[in-house]
């Protein structure tokens, strides 16, 4: 079981650019959630995808968007990057959408310069 896998592991982008991060959920999981973890902070919920639809969204601007594919993998897109978008982006997968155990990937470290 490969667990939750994310790519790339590290990324450097320039302000104003766009970025796409990818996540493959743990085998048997159908729900993917994305979190942003700024340096020295706890993770903050961005949004959750289930059945290829966004089910819940945190307090993030529309520059943050996502997608879920039929094989349950997911992408996080961020447009018009700001310096403040520099963070570790974590993907979590789970089975179903209710109260359940979430498994996290290793994260993608995004640096905006």
């Amino acid at each position: 079981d490969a667990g939750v896998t994310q790519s790339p592991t590290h990324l450097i982008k320039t302000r104003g650019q766009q970025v796409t991060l990818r996540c493959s959920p743990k085998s048997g999981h159908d729900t993917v959630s994305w979190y942003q973890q700024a340096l020295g902070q706890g993770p903050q919920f961005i949004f959750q995808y289930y059945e290829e639809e966004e089910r819940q969204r945190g307090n993030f601007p529309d520059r943050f968007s996502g997608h879920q594919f039929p094989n349950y993998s997911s992408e996080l897109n961020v447009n018009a990057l700001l310096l403040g978008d520099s963070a570790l982006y974590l993907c979590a997968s789970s089975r179903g959408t209710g109260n359940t155990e979430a498994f996290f990937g290793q994260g993608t470290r995004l640096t905006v310069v």
Partner: protein
Amino acid sequence: AQSVTQLDSQVPVFEEAPVELRCNYSSSVSVYLFWYVQYPNQGLQLLLKYLSGSTLVESINGFEAEFNKSQTSFHLRKPSVHISDTAEYFCAVSEVIQGAQKLVFGQGTRLTINP
């Protein structure tokens, strides 16, 4: 909305000493609580969870946490720590809105074990 407060940002202890990492959450009708551990430059690993049943939950590596509804707390304890326990620890509460779960995390507690 749920919130989580981790009362200590850093906790230094000596090896083989006991440790307690404190976590308080905002009250709710039903609560599902988690402790995650994050080693340097890695993602989060689930340490233990409280979903229902016994208020004392244990992990395989000697940590335990007790759900206390009256004090809205879910403190993490270990009777004897090892150097390998050095990491960041996050307490989280589950919030379900319109059927979709999100985890609300505390700010984290950095546990440093000194030899």
